[in-house]
């Protein structure tokens, strides 16, 4: 249960980190280490070089722009959880973070690390899917932007090149007064979700849904947007029947089946948790549906 030997690098600047990643063979990025270090201790992961991004202050922090939030990739999960800016502009994120591991792991774990690790049951990738987040990816070739949808590449895999790192995450700010709901089922607090659902609802004064997203996680190799549910909701008045119909659409997914839960059970959870998340979102948007 000890990691194999490696050389440790602690760059202080993004440029330096990018150059190290471009030149070092079999290198891995160390962010919060709450998933990577267990894998190294088990020797699932054996690296020659570890590039620690914890010294890069430029990758840390939360910025509020006109219509978007920018979160530095190395911002700790705990700092996002307790941020008043996040609670004000992106309350879905605040609520989701309470389910991410435990306080001891959130104190170290980072948002960029969570996205790069791409665990199918993880909460932060689901939130990025719900918001159609834009991911800033850095390397010696500069910064490129990629939509979160195009970051995933199957089970615990991303489209990031070996010499690329996530630098920041942009989330669009939804209109004030929008509703959010986050529901997760796990055997114990802090365990991996068997299934979870995240809902966002922007409802006009005429009770017509202007914008809606419904996201499931823990059911497939990466978070899933239930587009049929969203299409049913948008442009229509929000009623309890509409919410029930949208939640029923969540049953159409083809969930994974594993030792923790069968596919049919996950399908059931998807519908029930979608219903609860949408109801929470409606209530928070001021609609008693």
């Amino acid at each position, binding site marked *: 249960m000890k990691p194999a030997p490696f050389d440790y690098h602690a760059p202080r600047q993004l440029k330096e980190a990018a150059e190290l990643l471009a030149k070092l063979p079999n290198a891995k990025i160390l962010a919060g280490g709450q998933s990577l*270090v267990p894998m190294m201790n088990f020797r699932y992961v054996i690296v020659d070089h570890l590039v620690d991004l914890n010294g890069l202050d430029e990758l840390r922090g939360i910025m509020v722009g006109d219509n978007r939030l920018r979160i530095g990739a190395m911002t700790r999960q705990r700092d996002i959880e307790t941020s008043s800016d996040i609670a004000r502009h992106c309350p879905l994120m605040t609520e989701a973070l309470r389910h991410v591991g435990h306080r001891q*792991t959130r*104190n170290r774990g980072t948002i960029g690390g969570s996205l790069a690790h791409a665990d199918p049951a993880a909460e932060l990738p689901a939130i990025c899917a719900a918001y159609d987040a834009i991911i800033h990816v850095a390397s010696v070739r500069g910064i490129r932007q990629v939509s979160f949808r195009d970051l995933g590449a199957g089970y615990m895999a991303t489209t990031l090149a070996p010499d690329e790192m996530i630098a920041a995450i942009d989330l669009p700010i939804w209109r004030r007064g929008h509703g959010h709901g986050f529901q997760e089922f796990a055997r114990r607090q802090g365990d991996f979700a068997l299934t979870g659902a995240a809902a966002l609802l922007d409802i006009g004064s005429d009770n017509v849904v202007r914008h809606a997203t419904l996201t499931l996680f823990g059911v497939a190799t990466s978070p899933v947007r239930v587009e049929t549910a969203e299409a049913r909701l948008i442009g229509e008045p929000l009623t309890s029947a509409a919410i029930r119909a949208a939640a029923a659409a969540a049953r159409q997914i083809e969930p994974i089946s594993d030792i923790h839960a069968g596919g049919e059970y996950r399908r059931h959870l998807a519908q029930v948790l979608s219903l609860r998340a949408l109801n929470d979102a409606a209530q928070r948007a001021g609609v008693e549906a």
Partner: protein
Amino acid sequence: MGRQATRMDVNGKSYARVVDARLTLADFLRHEINLTGTHVGCEHGVCGACTVLVDGRTARSCLMFAVQANGCEVTTVEGLAPDGKLSVLQQAFIDNHGLQCGFCTPGMLMTLTELLRDKPEPSEPEVREALTGNLCRCTGYAGIVAAALDAARRLRDEAEKPGAA
């Protein structure tokens, strides 16, 4: 391969060593500076026995490398009773049967020290949620939860006493 210098303050005392980069902070504390109060259970971040404070925040010391703690202030369970006098929380563990074998206790104490510092009046569900990251196989947690709530009460009483520092 991978030898590196690291210097950190542990319980207010400075330590400098040259170590393997792969040495975890937990093993550094136990084997390099002989502070064996920090226990190592699972070595993959699940059991919480190795929890310490790094710059005032709890962290699993099996998931950090000692070289990463370079320049940090680390507090271990030994730092809770610097002059051999138990902290209020430690005494509450004794009085409420908060431990049996004692293996998980150092991690429990560090987790609850952080909780009580940030939240002097935690509810029972809040205590239980805080403890989800620490496994105990003896007590069934009841004594630990009672100890945490008792310690919170005693700390509040102390703070309210006239002339309290």
